[in-house]
């Protein structure tokens, strides 16, 4: 590259510089490529989880069916939950954050690009590792919550539980690393002039989410470690025969588990808070209130975990305390819904597919919130806990809340990521199938639960009034399935031959629309500078703002004769992740030699990582000509 100058690096560890081809993806440290990898992996895992859901719905279509055995059915709902929570929806939020947080704050990458790559590889390989259990004696069958003592060796001698524990333990390392990365990036690498209260709300949500991840994952990791020690090394944390109190697992799990709900939904809140203002052509209503409400939700999210345990006999005082904190968390959530309505109010609303997903989100999430208040009443929760009422509730909150929003986010940001606009007609057709299908699946499940259908049952008897609701629910999977297929067709078709999008197809408000579509690998030619919230919008529509707007694309610093430093790529994140995964197989199969060899290999990769040098080269976009 004529415009580039190489940076001297040590001879032993040369950082690769491929920009295309498979090797460029395996060694990439570019937040955009990793974001795309995250998003694609999430959708692959989501496809697997959908197949599992479909098998469950077929089995439950009629009473007393025996399409699949109870053991296989248990594996299906376990893997569906594990996949959706840990491998699909949460990484989807992280994937969007990977791609768009640096762009939105005017940075060129995350603070630690190789750590970011490591986070991705550990997550995706950890997820794949759990899925190999299907071919290695059976997947975990303990529910996504993995309650003790279902996980003890005496109750569950198969390897499925080990795959669950090691896979999620390992994935958790990646999630935690990426969360720290996001925090450092957001705090340190914002564009000049972008104070905290000028940050896009999506960035705010990812900052809060990352802090939640940092605090929520350690208890879960401890719990995983306890079970791993129990099963591999013979400790007695969760062995009731030795006097253990298995309720401990539930506390540790839900101290993580409830914040996890917000870890999933806050990025979705952020996305809605970006899309609704863009398509209403108005700023977000009550920006500081939205931010404060989310911080409050995040704090309170750590104080409500026992509302998942109202039926475990904690007693009336504890149940009252956790009931009240759960009610309180409903207040900021309600405030957010009103603020989104306030943003729409008085706007000039363009009904793009993205916006329609946002509106569907508001409806679905409101219903999920109302049932959330209901299950937060311990007296009534005693009836519906562990029933399909709860299944419906959390699918309304997380499926209808997060998933619908992320689908809208794909429509919103696809043009930025690929330079091509998704087909709106096909997108809207898919939208209607998905939304109608979703409600056909999950609304009847409220009633099935109230009619006495527990969750996680492989079959149910005829004659107690469950037939119709289950039939409707299964019927809905076909409708939603058509929608998801249309969505996939739309993405593939557009990717091959879509309409060119231009750099700013939606008249966007945030900085990612100030660069080209797709952005160059160094993100911005000139470091953007902002002097207000929604600075790009203010520049495009100066009549709407009181302060003197500046062009965030042009008002950068003085030309730096060194150009932009772009780091080289690296094999070490992938190699370190592989070492961890192979070592996990070694521990699962009690093969200490393999585990120790992998351990040493891991240490080698860390040394290689540390000593491979800065690498990379400097880019001079001015010399390459005007891009955007």
């Amino acid at each position: 590259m004529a415009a580039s100058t190489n940076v001297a690096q040590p001879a032993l560890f040369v950082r690769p510089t491929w920009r295309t081809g498979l090797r460029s993806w395996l060694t990439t440290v570019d937040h955009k490529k990793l974001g795309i990898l995250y998003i694609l992996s999430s959708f692959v895992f989501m496809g697997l989880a959908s197949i599992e859901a479909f098998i469950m719905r077929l089995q439950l279509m009629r009473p007393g069916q025996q399409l699949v055995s109870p053991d296989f059915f248990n594996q299906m709902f376990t893997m569906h939950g594990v996949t959706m929570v840990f491998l699909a929806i949460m990484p989807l939020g992280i994937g969007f954050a990977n791609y768009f947080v640096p762009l939105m704050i005017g940075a060129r990458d995350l603070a630690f690009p190789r750590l970011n790559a490591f986070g991705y590889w550990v997550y995706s390989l950890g997820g794949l590792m759990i899925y190999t259990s299907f071919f290695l004696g059976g997947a975990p069958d303990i529910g996504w919550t993995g309650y003790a003592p279902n996980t003890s060796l005496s109750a569950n001698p198969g390897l499925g539980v080990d795959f669950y524990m090691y896979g999620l333990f390992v994935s958790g390392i990646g999630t935690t690393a990426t969360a720290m990365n996001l925090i450092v990036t957001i705090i340190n690498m914002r564009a000049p002039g972008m104070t905290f209260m000028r940050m896009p709300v999506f960035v705010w949500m990812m900052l809060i989410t990352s802090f939640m991840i940092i605090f929520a994952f350690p208890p879960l990791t401890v719990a995983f470690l306890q079970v791993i020690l129990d099963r591999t090394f013979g400790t007695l944390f969760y062995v009731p025969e030795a006097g253990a109190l298995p309720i401990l697992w539930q506390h540790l799990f839900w101290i993580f588990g409830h914040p996890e709900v917000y870890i999933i939904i806050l990025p979705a809140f952020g996305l809605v808070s970006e899309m609704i203002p863009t398509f209403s052509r108005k700023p977000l209503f009550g920006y500081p209130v939205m931010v404060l409400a989310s911080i409050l939700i995040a704090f309170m999210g750590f104080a409500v975990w026992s509302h998942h345990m109202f039926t475990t006999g904690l007693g009336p005082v504890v149940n009252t305390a956790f009931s009240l904190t759960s009610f309180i968390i409903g207040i900021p959530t309600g405030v957010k819904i009103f603020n989104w309505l306030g943003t729409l109010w008085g706007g000039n609303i363009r009904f793009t597919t993205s916006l329609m997903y946002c509106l569907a989100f508001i409806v679905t999430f409101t219903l999920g919130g109302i049932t959330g208040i209901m299950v937060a009443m311990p007296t009534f929760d005693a009836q519906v806990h562990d029933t399909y009422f709860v299944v419906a509730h959390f699918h309304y909150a997380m499926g209808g809340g997060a998933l619908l929003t992320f689908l809208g986010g794909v429509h919103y940001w696809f043009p930025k990521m690929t330079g091509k606009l998704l087909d709106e007609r096909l997108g809207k057709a898919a939208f209607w199938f998905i939304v109608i299908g979703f409600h056909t699946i999950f609304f009847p499940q409220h009633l099935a639960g109230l009619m006495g259908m527990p969750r996680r049952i492989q079959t149910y008897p005829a004659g107690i009034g469950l037939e119709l609701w289950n039939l409707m629910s299964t019927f809905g999977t076909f409708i939603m399935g058509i929608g998801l297929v249309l969505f996939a067709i739309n993405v593939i078709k557009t990717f091959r031959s879509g309409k060119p999008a231009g750099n700013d197809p939606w008249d966007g408000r945030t900085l990612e629309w100030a660069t080209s579509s797709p952005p160059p690998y160094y993100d911005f030619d000139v470091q953007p500078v902002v002097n207000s919230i929604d600075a790009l919008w203010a520049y495009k529509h100066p009549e709407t703002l009181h302060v003197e707007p500046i062009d965030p694309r042009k008002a950068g610093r003085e030309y730096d004769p060194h150009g932009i430093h772009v780091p080289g790529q690296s094999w070490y994140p992938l190699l370190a992740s592989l070492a961890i995964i192979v070592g996990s197989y070694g521990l699962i199969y009690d093969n200490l030699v393999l585990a120790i060899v992998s351990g040493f290999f891991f240490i080698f990769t860390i040394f290689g990582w540390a000593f491979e040098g800065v690498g990379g080269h400097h880019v001079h976009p001015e010399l390459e000509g005007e891009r955007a």
Partner: protein
Amino acid sequence: MRIGWLWRALPGAALMFVLSGCSLVGEQSVFAPAGPLASEQLGLFMYTWRLSIPVMLLVGGVLVYVIVRYRNRRGDDSIPGQTHGNVLLEVVWTTIPVLIVILIAVPTVRSIFRTQSFIEAGEEDVVVTVTGYQWWWKFEYPQYGITTANELHVPVGARVVLDLESGDVLHAFWAPRLGGKVDLIPNQDNQLWIQADEPGVYYGQCAELCLGAHAYMRFRVVAEEPEDFQRWVESFQQPVVQTVSSDPLVQQGRTLFAQKGCIGCHANDNYAEGISYGQPQYPNLTNFGLRYTVGAAVLDATLDNVAQWIMDPQSVKPGNRMPTLWAADDPNREEEARAIAAYLLSLGAEQRTADAGSALAMGVPGGN
């Protein structure tokens, strides 16, 4: 355009039609409470449900208004007023949820202490120790010194205090028409109370994943008039020992019950005077003839069903742990299983009073 509106209204109308055509009352329905606990729990739900309707109407109404009023008209490229917020509105729509939450919280807290406080069981209460096993229920009555499995007999109108324990993994005792569930957790003493207001048979089910055949871990609660309940208790305290039967099938069944090894696991006080054999971690079969169901309430206890269950348990309840006693090609297996079934159904059968049917069919308050 007009047809478009009709098209959009159809799904809603269809749903209304479906909803109005079906009853939400069933054998396991929260909407058919038959005791004070379940009534209180349903009452709280109905209260919150009514409160939530205005919230849904408000959000839905505003949303529809916004969609209609502020949608982009073709060619309208104007930029609307750039409102950033409104403090008064924020205060108002923070206060409204606070008020709603208070309205819900007060009755909730009162009901928690009414329904979930620890009970010191008195003389007038019936105490039952419930132990969950994969995948059946043991019911012990310490006041009467009797034990049974999978069918919990209780007197109508009495408070029944259940001490919940587990013999292996987690389970949850849930009889929706009598009250909400509480988990059975190893090494932990949990408590639940229920009370049936009307005689009848109430359905129940394990509601906490216990692996394998979890879906088939069902039970019944049989609520009887106090005098019937007393007779039932006595039939267990002094079980009829029956060593000889005039029915040759029953006689053959008794022999096979020992020969095939049933007796090694299953206690049976009717088998011989003073000896019940069996082990406590397997279902006690004493007075099996009084049972309504077999296989932890999976099948009605008819001769055919019981025989099928004994002959091939996996066909009835996949994943359960009862051994299959005959090879699949054993020519005698049907006949022998039938003999054992006949024997089991004869145990205590002469003490059987009139069948208590489903309480639902008998038109209990809350039904329809």
